């Protein structure tokens, strides 16, 4: 008997597995429950696949979208509606990163205690960090360009502006055919879910690597003869700059100098810095994952690496991650991780959620950040002209990215402003915008002026 009763241990093991598995389920219930509940077939939260309750507001309390009896109404102003399409989203979920889709659980008031049968009948209010007026200005500034403008506060993480074009009016959705070039990538939020050739803006990353890896690089001189052969590639420059310092090379965005530097650093080192600067990370913006940037440095031959160091080649950068890196440079090495939810409350105003701000890892050493800041300022002073950014203590780098498939190039401007009330980092990208300093920098100025203005009016 004794030996047989000892063998009952197998029953115990089986029961243990059952309990363990149930424990795993309970764990998943807590970590993924909200996501599970947000499935459109869940008729507690969805009516015919459409989220049935909740209100979405901007940081000033302007209603961006509101569910009533299974239909959604939007902001009164058409331009604002278009500007915020990708941020707000649409109830049928076609815009995957939209708040209506991603924050469905929060909008309906789903919680672990009472589940989907919430005590508040009309769902919750979700306040976004975006400022509808700034977004509206950004959308207007982008004009007919496809592209994106994103601006965020690198100290608090609040995303103030998140606009992606092409867009449409969610209140009167047009019929969009898949092949319509005017609506190319209309459902994609270009700031969060896409990556593009960075052009010269990537020189900031090459610069970061050079400052940290090459001793005394700030005092070195580079020669630009208009083009240079590295590996089997010829890297052409926008001009013939002759002997040129590192700072000057960044000011005039000299391809030859940065191709040299990239060649000196090598693919492996550059690859390391694309990781360290956080570009290859996928950030979680309140649960919305950004697309990670991708590079070819690891396996590319020398010529391609040199092109990559200049910002062409196999580089694809996500605008949001570039913006975060700019925030880190401005902030001495670390920046706040972007957030898009300001707060969630019951319809009556009682707060239901608490959003703790998070910091990124150290993306750059503070000494390096200081030099980069200095150089970015001299970009503005020496090349773009401070007068174009009246009243802004702005630091930036433009980019003009060539795309094989298109004759016109894409316009970039990334950077940050220093301002006690509005410490903002930004990334502007306009497809077919041509020169970065012409198109993207102008857009950036318009948006930042509006952003600073909105902060100062708030102060009053």
């Amino acid at each position, binding site marked *: 008997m004794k030996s047989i009763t000892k063998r009952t241990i197998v029953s115990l093991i*089986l029961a243990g597995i*059952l309990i363990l598995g149930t424990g795993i389920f309970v764990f998943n219930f807590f970590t993924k429950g909200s996501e599970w*509940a947000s499935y459109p077939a*869940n008729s507690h939260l969805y009516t015919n696949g459409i989220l049935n309750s909740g209100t979405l507001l901007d940081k000033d309390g302007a209603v961006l979208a509101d569910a009533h009896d299974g239909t959604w109404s939007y902001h009164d102003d058409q331009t604002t509606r278009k500007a915020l399409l990708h941020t707000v989203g649409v109830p049928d979920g076609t815009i995957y990163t939209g708040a209506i889709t991603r924050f469905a659980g929060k909008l309906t008031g789903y919680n*672990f205690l009472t589940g989907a049968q919430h005590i508040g009948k009309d769902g919750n209010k979700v306040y976004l960090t975006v400022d509808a007026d700034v977004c509206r200005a950004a959308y207007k500034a982008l004009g007919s360009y496809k592209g994106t403008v994103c601006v965020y506060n690198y100290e608090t993480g609040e995303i103030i502006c998140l606009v992606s074009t092409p867009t449409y009016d969610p209140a009167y959705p047009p019929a969009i055919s898949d092949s319509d070039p005017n609506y190319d990538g209309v459902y994609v939020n270009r700031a969060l879910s896409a990556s593009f050739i960075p052009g010269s803006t990537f020189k900031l990353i090459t610069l970061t690597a050079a400052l940290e890896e090459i001793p005394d690089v700030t005092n070195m001189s580079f020669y630009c003869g208009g083009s240079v052969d590295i590996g089997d590639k010829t890297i052409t420059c926008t001009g013939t700059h002759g002997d040129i310092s590192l700072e000057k090379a960044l000011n005039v965005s000299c391809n030859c100098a940065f191709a040299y530097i990239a060649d000196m650093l090598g693919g492996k080192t550059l690859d390391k810095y694309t990781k360290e600067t956080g570009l290859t990370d996928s950030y979680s913006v309140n649960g919305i994952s950004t697309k990670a940037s991708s590079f070819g440095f690891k396996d590319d031959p020398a010529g391609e690496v040199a092109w990559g160091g200049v910002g062409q080649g196999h580089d694809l950068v996500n605008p949001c991650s570039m913006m975060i890196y700019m925030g880190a440079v401005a902030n001495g090495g670390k920046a706040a991780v972007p957030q898009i939810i300001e707060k969630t409350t019951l319809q009556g*105003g009682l707060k239901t959620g608490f959003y703790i701000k998070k910091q990124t890892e150290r993306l750059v050493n503070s000494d390096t950040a200081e030099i980069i800041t200095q150089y970015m300022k001299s970009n503005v002073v020496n090349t773009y002209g401070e007068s174009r950014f009246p009243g802004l203590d702005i630091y930036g780098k433009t980019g003009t990215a060539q795309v094989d498939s298109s004759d016109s190039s894409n316009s970039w401007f990334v950077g940050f402003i220093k301002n006690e009330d509005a410490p903002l980092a930004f990334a502007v990208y306009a497809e077919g915008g041509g020169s970065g300093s012409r198109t993207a920098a102008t857009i950036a100025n318009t948006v930042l002026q509006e952003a600073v203005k909105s902060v100062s009016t708030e102060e009053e």
Partner: protein
Amino acid sequence: MGNTIIDILNFIWLKICQFAAFMIQLLDTGIKSIPYAFSWLSSNSLDIGVWYCQIVRWLMPVLALIILTAIIKSMLRVKNPEETWGYLKSDSLGTFPITHWESLIGKGKTCDIVIEFVTISKIHCAMIFDGINRWRVHDLSGGSDVSINGEKVSNSAEIESGDILSIGGVDFEFETISQEESSLEEKKRSYKSRTPVSPVFSISMLTVFQMLAASSLVINRPEYSIQITFSYIILAAVMWVYILVNYFGGKRGLEPEILAFFLCSLCLSVTASSSPGTLYKQLAAILIGIFIFLILSWYLRDLKRVVKTRHLMAAFTCILLAASLVFGTIQHGAQNWIYIMGVSFQPSELAKVCFIFAGAASLERLFKKRNLWGFMAMSFFCFGCLALMSDFGTAAIFFVTFLIIAFMRSGDYTTISIICCSAVAALGLMIKFKPYIASRFAVWGNAWENASTTGYQQVRTMSAAASGGFIGVGSGDGWLHNVAAANTDLVFGMICEEWGLIIAVLAVVAIASMSIFAIRVVKSGRSSYYVIAACAATSMLVFQTMLNVFGSLDMFPLTGVTFPFVSCGGSSMLASWGILAFLKAADTREGASFAVRKIRFGPKKIRVPSESVEIQDYTDEVTGVYNRGEM
């Protein structure tokens, strides 16, 4: 270095600040919520029915927690003191109590009666009681070292009280216990095995639970109010009759049944929510299940009779499975339903009960290896039938139960490993030749990517389960019941949605605790038959729950098996109650189970010249033995 410490301190300080901010926020929220609650109440007028359901939503998990913690606590802490059936007395080595019906005697530590003496082998012999009046001694030494009253025992021989058993040259006087002793012991045991919780309290709470469930179901399904009320009243009545009859009959160890009644209450609510038209059918299934439970428990009281009918049961298992293979109709891809006179049932469910009945074995049969081969042959026939029926869930349940029984019978890791390996190989072959099975495995873990095709059910189960939160949306208020097989294969999701995570987890814990309970009570089991049967039975329930719960949540491939006692369906309910009988039969706590027979020994068994004096002394001595044993 200094910097690092400062960094760490800064970090800790930051965290403390964040935490403090969070607590302040929480406090703030709490204070603000009071006026808000009032304003909300005044601006949202609700009718009384909705109010009632809202309150019931909050009460149910609390009630369930109270009921189950009481029962499970008493199940997990159960003390099952040893029973004594007789003694082996030696002048030189002392007195050895015989505490099981089947005891191995030898010097080895695994023996039940350990006699450390040079001439005694590790496992020398076995003493086996038939549960009525006969004892037999089996020689296991392989030699000629066992004799009774000087007569050599070849293989086995009967022994009576007062006989001299000689093992390895040592003489022992064998004595069964007297009536006085037996009643004295009974008192001691009932004191020790008394359960801390009165069953009356638990079922009172359970009745409240049932009535609350019924009332909120009536509000949500008013067109079926009569069926709902009637079903719950009948269930409660049957439960009370059963408990009270037992209680006043002195049987107070009723935890497994109360758990089963709790799960059946959930079953009724699932039925009322998903297909209220079949409530009476489900109620009938529960009642027949209880009837089967009673009959089987009664039948299991007598080991001799059980052992005799084992072969019959083995044949019956095979016939049941063969019948569904021949006459079965295909439903949901598995050919396991038989229709007889308008009633449909799944023979494979009933075969589960018979399988355990036939598979468990008393010690006598374990002496011979070939007996295991017979069991294996029957098992493989079962697997074959189930595979041909494409009922892989049930096949898996049979297989795991088979493994448990085979291991308990043989204790042989090698054999078990070989069996497992061949099973994996067989599964591999099956997947190769029947690609549609592979497709079932393919979706496993990827349900969300296939949400509208192969992962349809799992995704909806998870979504509905999450919607329930802790307390559920209220019985009858869910939507998962609109999905196919929601009240059987996906029942865990339904419970989660309508009753909340707490009750759903408690239902799983209820099944798991049966298993743990079994392990604890069988420690002083009478016969290995009961030990094996109880462990196989509870393991079967546990594994079935595992397949059901994890399958519906995409943690296992979805195989479509039922949750014992909770899933709707007649055959599975009958089988669940039938399986429970095996657990009941192993519960040898004093006055616990009607499935365990009280055995008294008349004075005629004791051969003593002057009765009164001898017995007096004897009792004292026994007390002494007890005390020694306890210290």
